[in-house]
């Protein structure tokens, strides 16, 4: 037994364990569930329990393997029904806009925090994280109360005499974007702050000495140096936004097309687990493939530099 262990971990067993734990984690909680979803996505639907048919079957001593691709085919059959294609595009669009808004609001925010006196930085950081102390659902519901037609926001605007009639804001793309940006903003600010706080102030001084205007210093020094923070923040916002279900459901309008909603329909209205699994697989690929390409490009460009 000990020999076997020794052969599996030749040099340093401690090292193998340390490396092995995260891999084990990924295999158990990412790869395995994904494979299950993948398996369901190529099964046929079944009424009953489980709601999909088995992939393998023994008939007359033949092992029959039936891989059903109909779910994927109908997802991409745009000529017949472009609902899925439209939904993917619309989800990506909302996620992209959320990321852009979060970046535009979050960058100055993080910059201000990073430039604040070190003594008050922990307090500022605390303020950013404070909303997490309240349930996410509660905060989204609060926006419902604020934005509804006879809600707080409309009453203030009417009270100030800015508008005469209450505005219809809830269940529109506007309320959806407010909710998404509000919820995901901390995920943008935190990595940006972590990055910007390490920015070497002397580089900016040097740029100023060499005659760069504040604008040039920002674009040519600060932004390139904070690139990794921007990327990390954008990923943290963009990826969960694509699959977001709760916020569009509560704040979006009935015409809001999001992949989360389509998944819900497949699972609940149609009870078609295989089709829902196929939708999920394509969503994952849609996010992972660009990410992998980007990673590769990033690794290559870093390899060139060193």
């Amino acid at each position, binding site marked *: 037994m000990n020999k076997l262990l020794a052969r599996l971990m030749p040099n340093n067993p401690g090292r193998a364990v340390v490396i092995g734990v995260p891999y084990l984690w990924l295999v158990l909680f990412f790869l395995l569930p994904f494979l299950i979803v993948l398996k369901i996505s190529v099964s046929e639907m079944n009424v009953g*329990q489980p*709601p999909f048919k088995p992939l393998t079957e023994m008939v007359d001593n033949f092992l029959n393997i039936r891989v059903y691709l109909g779910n994927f085919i109908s997802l991409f059959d745009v000529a017949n029904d472009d*609902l899925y294609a439209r939904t993917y595009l619309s989800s990506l669009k909302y996620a992209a806009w959320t990321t852009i808004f979060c970046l535009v609001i979050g960058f100055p925010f993080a910059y201000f925090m990073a430039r604040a006196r070190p003594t008050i930085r922990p307090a500022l950081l605390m303020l950013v994280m404070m909303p997490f102390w309240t349930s996410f659902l509660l905060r989204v519901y609060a926006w419902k109360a604020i934005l509804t037609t006879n809600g707080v926001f409309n009453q203030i605007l009417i009270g100030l005499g800015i508008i005469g009639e209450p505005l219809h804001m809830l269940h529109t793309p506007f309320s959806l974007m407010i909710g998404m940006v509000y919820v995901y903003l901390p995920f943008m600010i935190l990595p940006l702050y972590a990055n910007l706080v390490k920015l070497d102030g002397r580089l900016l001084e040097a740029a100023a000495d060499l005659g760069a205007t504040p604008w040039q210093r920002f674009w040519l020094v600060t932004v390139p140096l904070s690139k990794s923070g921007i990327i990390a923040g954008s990923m943290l916002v963009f990826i969960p936004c694509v699959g977001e279900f709760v916020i569009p459901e509560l704040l979006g309008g*009935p015409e809001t*097309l999001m992949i989360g909603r389509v998944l819900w329909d497949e699972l609940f*209205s149609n009870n078609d687990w295989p089709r829902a699994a196929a939708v999920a697989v394509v969503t994952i690929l849609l996010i992972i493939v660009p990410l992998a390409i980007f990673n590769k490009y990033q690794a290559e460009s870093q390899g060139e530099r060193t």
Partner: protein
Amino acid sequence: MKLFSFRALADVAWGVALAASCGIALAQEEPKVLNVYNWSDYIAEDTLKNFEKETGIKVRYDNFDSNEILHAKLVAGKTGYDIVVPSSNWAKIQIDGGLLAKLDKALIPNLANVDAETAGQIAKLDPGNQHLVVWLWGYTTVGINVDKVKAALGSMPMPDNAWDLVFKPEYISKMKSCGVSFLDSPSEIFPAALHYLGKPAFSKQTSDYQEASRMLQAIRPYVTLFSSSGYINDMANGSICLALGWSGDISIARQRAIDGKTGNKIEVLIPKTGGILFFDTMAIPVDAPHPKNAHAFINYILKPEVHASLTNKVFYANPNAQSTKFVKKEVAENPTVFLSAENKKKMIAPDAVNNDIRRLSTRLYTQFKTGL
């Protein structure tokens, strides 16, 4: 070696004996717990309290607001629920899929209270009433805020057929300004739309659904809310003046408007061509952890005074022939709760549809809702 195997065998035998004795103990003595999954706004305040007092069984009570959600949970299995309340046409799919357990009628003596007419309706989908007992029943119909709808219509008279209000553009377009709510589920909207077009409400023809979809597209701009539970309060407080909803829900809105002194006069309409009937039925999932308690609960609900208290609270009719004397006078006399024989005859009975039709109606419903 020999000794080892003998000991192992002894261990196994001991283990089996222990497990078996536990199993027997469990079968005799169920924990005093019951998990119920029912529709929202569908019970009286004291129903569960009295049941707990009478039987000592603690009830955990959860809500849903569409058959789709319940069905999805049952299909996924291991819900942990002992009582679920699907509508009869969905329950049929669940019975066929082997998701619901057969009732042990010996444990439900109060089954004798169920009136023959309702039992007959259910038997069409559940032959021999082997799985289902009606909780309450009602119908999908149109509800209005009388004053607001009259004001919105102006010089136009009320239509002869109440369905016109929600499905005919010249009527519903007038109502947009005061708020129009539709139930939020394909399995509620399509039967009503198909019925309005003169098709079978639970049609099996794809072309019928396409036609209904075209009609729905035309009225989509005027629907301001899709809701299957929140519309009760919206109607009561006046932010909605027209609803395609469930009969009892609209009556609850009416009561809340009266209790809250909002001045909104809410009314349930009975369409000339009839509403779409539904029977919500108590059933026990096959994998229910406490089936005995579930039977006790069904038997308790079937007590005349308990069933009457449900009707008194939520304005849906009950199937309990003995309960009439416990129903409040104003509820008993409400013609939209207990339908007259003439109105009953007009109502459309529920039926199950197959998977292809469900997929089609979900797809067309998404199209309707998103306006794409």
